[in-house]
């Protein structure tokens, strides 16, 4: 327990207080108050204000941009490949209908147009099946190689089916426009 009651000597303190003088110089007052004003801590901003302020800082902008870039790259790398069937379907649908192409064409062309259509029928059926099954992997389409195609043409010619051989050759021209097909046919025939 502490004794903090007024003592009988408080009048002495009062006497000194009444006659005490001395004030800090005005320049000192001004200096201290100006310093206090200047160095007063900034008012605490709200969470949203702090976040917005952080977004305006160059280093945070750089950090956010880096994070966004990394996320974008990861997204691109991890993205599943588009099923090949969809691309093929889109290619087919974008192509002009074979009837429109073949209608004004001369007879060989018309025959050629019919032939691929007949070839494509099983393929389209297969693609439809796979789309229905929601397969993401590409179903391989077994197209004959150039060598096989040429051999088939030779076989057809040998069998006297020249029309069919011509159609095959035309189809090969489309698939391999840069190859010298007659020369290769000749070489194969000689073998």
């Amino acid at each position, binding site marked *: 327990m*502490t*004794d*903090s009651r007024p*003592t*009988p*000597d408080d*009048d*002495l*303190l009062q*006497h*000194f*207080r009444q*006659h*005490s*003088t*001395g*004030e*800090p*110089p005005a320049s*000192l*007052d001004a*200096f*201290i*108050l100006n*310093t*206090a*004003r200047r*160095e*007063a*801590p*900034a*008012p*605490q901003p709200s969470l949203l204000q702090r976040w917005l302020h952080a977004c305006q800082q160059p280093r945070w902008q750089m950090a956010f941009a880096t994070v966004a870039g990394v996320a974008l790259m990861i997204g691109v790398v991890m993205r599943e490949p588009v099923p090949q069937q969809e691309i093929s379907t889109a290619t087919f649908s974008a192509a002009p209908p074979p009837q429109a192409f073949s209608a004004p064409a001369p007879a060989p062309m018309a025959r050629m147009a019919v032939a691929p259509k007949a070839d494509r029928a099983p393929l389209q059926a297969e693609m439809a099946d796979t789309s229905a099954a929601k397969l993401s992997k590409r179903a391989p389409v077994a197209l004959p190689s150039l060598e096989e195609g040429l051999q088939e043409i030779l076989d057809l010619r040998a069998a006297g089916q020249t029309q069919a051989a011509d159609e095959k050759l035309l189809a090969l021209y489309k698939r391999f426009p840069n190859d010298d097909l007659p020369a290769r046919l000749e070489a194969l025939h000689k073998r």
Partner: protein
Amino acid sequence: MPAPNDPPSDEALLTRYRTGDAAAFEALYARHRQGLYRFLVALSNKAELAEEIYQETWLSLIRSSTQPQGRASFRTWLFQIARNRLIDYWRKHGIHNPLHDSYDEQLHAQPDDSAGPEQQLSLSRDQARLDAALQGLPEDQREVFLLRLHGDLEVPQIAALTGAPLETVKSRLRYAQQKLRRLLAEEIRV
């Protein structure tokens, strides 16, 4: 519980200043500027040194993020900072710290024959004599008396600030007041 119209406490003003309210510091400064300044002038007995310590004390408070610890009031804390700064100054400049002198109050205690009401009323009112009487006190008594006079601190607060036992502070204050009364009364008689 404080009434709604009560002025904010020193501690509340300091907290407001720490959160960005510059006006709170001005109120705090206005409350304590005079007492702290007079305490330092009387304790150091040098106006220039007192001003330096006074400025350092306030700047330290402005730049610090701490608050009075435990049950210490702001006033005790402020005067403690100022006292520590002054002791640091004395130590740094190789000046003997008079506050650390051991002093036997009993040896210096003289019969207080001037405690009567009539003599109390006839205390000297000359400022120079008052100052001379204060400077005539032993340092540790003077410090306790000045903390009571200008800091308006209670005895337990002075004990906490100076690190002296409570009874020692009480006796120092009592001897200081007896001696001052005697010195001032002697001035009148002379």
